[in-house]
């Protein structure tokens, strides 16, 4: 592998990312499964980078999961997106940053559609006006929240307490990066690094001291496939896709997986559990899984945030082995406590996948 070859491609896919004053919209999957990640993103943006990130309570889902599972028509999804733009406009912002990759892909697709078919944009403006009385400006800058963290990766490294180095061996951690399909597959120019060798996560890993693993099924989808997970009968396909990826990456013995899409970390995490229960397979060392992190969680780790404050306790594949490798202290007794420090019971341990509980 010649890394310079990739660097030449990365040069061709630079992308303009706004420097401040972001209008932030949330992700349905993130809020449900890894809420700590969105909290950590805002904490980093405000406390470390002193940026203006604004959220308006009136924004809703973009309806993307409904759209990609085909119950929500394109016309509706476009108008829902137009409404988000309208809320951005009324809030006085023009840099739109989304937490979700499905949304980011949908926003990109819609803006592109409007560019090529201005009559569609006009029709959607009429729909929105009629339904809600709203008008809107299109964003001056559209980014995914991972683009923003990428942009400030050096500042985060400068403020950082930890590096992606194995403290026992002194060697860089070996990391698999997984990019959400809708980040740049349809429009390679909209993603940092393009569609074939996206750089958005690689850039963070390089900057924070880790080493990136490229493996044959790197580009393969995590298996979500919308309806392919939403309906139980289809999940055999979803889990088979994930298994394909794990079988392909396992020989490289990755220390963890880094993701930028809200859905992927959930599936890469949960399907490891399901595979351990269905077939007794575990992909890490000694019955451990391979920890899966969001980029917000990783940035939080680098900055020395408490693992349980950034939400690492809601991973089914425990992250403790990774924290140990980096040398991050954690307080196991606090792992499953409430905000006020009260007990609320603990999750059961899976049968085959190692899990960490307190006494």
């Amino acid at each position, binding site marked *: 592998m010649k890394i310079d070859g990739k660097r030449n491609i990365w040069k061709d896919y630079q992308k303009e990312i706004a420097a401040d004053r972001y209008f932030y919209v949330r992700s349905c999957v993130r809020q449900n499964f890894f809420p700590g990640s969105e909290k950590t993103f805002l904490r980093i943006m405000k406390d470390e980078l002193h940026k203006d990130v604004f959220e308006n309570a009136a924004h809703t889902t973009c309806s993307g999961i409904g759209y990609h599972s085909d119950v929500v028509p394109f016309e509706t999804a476009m108008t829902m997106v137009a409404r988000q733009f309208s809320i951005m406009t009324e809030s006085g912002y023009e840099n739109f940053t989304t937490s979700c990759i499905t949304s980011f892909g949908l926003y990109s697709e819609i803006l592109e559609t409007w560019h090529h078919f201005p009559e569609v944009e006009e029709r959607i403006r009429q729909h929105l006006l009629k339904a809600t009385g709203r008008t809107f400006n299109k964003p001056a800058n559209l980014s995914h929240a991972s683009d923003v963290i990428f942009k400030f990766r050096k500042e985060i490294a400068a403020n950082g307490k930890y590096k992606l180095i194995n403290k026992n061996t002194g060697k860089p951690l070996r990391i698999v990066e997984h990019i959400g399909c809708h980040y740049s597959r349809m429009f390679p120019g909209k993603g940092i690094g393009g569609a074939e060798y996206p750089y958005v996560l690689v850039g963070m890993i390089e900057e924070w001291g880790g080493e990136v693993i490229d493996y044959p099924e790197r580009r393969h989808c995590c298996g979500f496939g919308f309806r392919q997970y939403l309906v139980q009968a289809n*999940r*055999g*396909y979803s889990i088979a896709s994930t298994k394909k990826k794990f079988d392909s990456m396992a020989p490289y013995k990755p220390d963890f997986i880094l993701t930028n899409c809200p859905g992927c970390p959930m599936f890469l995490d949960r399907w490891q559990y399901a595979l351990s*229960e269905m077939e007794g397979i575990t992909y890490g060392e000694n019955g451990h899984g391979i920890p899966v992190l969001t980029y917000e969680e990783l940035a939080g780790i680098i900055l020395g945030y408490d693992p349980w404050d950034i939400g690492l306790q809601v991973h089914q594949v425990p992250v403790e082995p990774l924290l140990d490798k980096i040398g991050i202290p954690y307080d196991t007794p606090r792992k499953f406590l409430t905000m006020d420090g009260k007990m609320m019971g603990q999750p059961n341990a899976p049968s085959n996948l190692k899990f960490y509980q307190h006494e």
Partner: protein
Amino acid sequence: MINFGYKIMRDESIDLDRNDMRIAEYLKLHEPSIKLCIGCGSCTATCSTGHFTDFNIRQVHTFIRRGEIKRVKKEIQRCMFCGKCQLVCPRGVNLRNVILTINRAIEQIG
């Protein structure tokens, strides 16, 4: 082991790294004209069985050459040996003997 209500699906792609190519090799050795196939589909177009069923002779012998024997083991028994395919083949592939050879290979190799 927990039953989650579904099974992990099997990869249905053709994996030339893992497939057993013995029958394909046997075929190439004993009826070398098969190597000349250009995938034109003349055989399928004229196939007697294919006219009444969804049997696709071109696809079947292509699967064999890819080592996908399980997929077409039953399928191949549907050939009626009318020999029309051989008459129309632009590359002179002896398709009748291709099928006979595959059957022999299946008997010998499994």
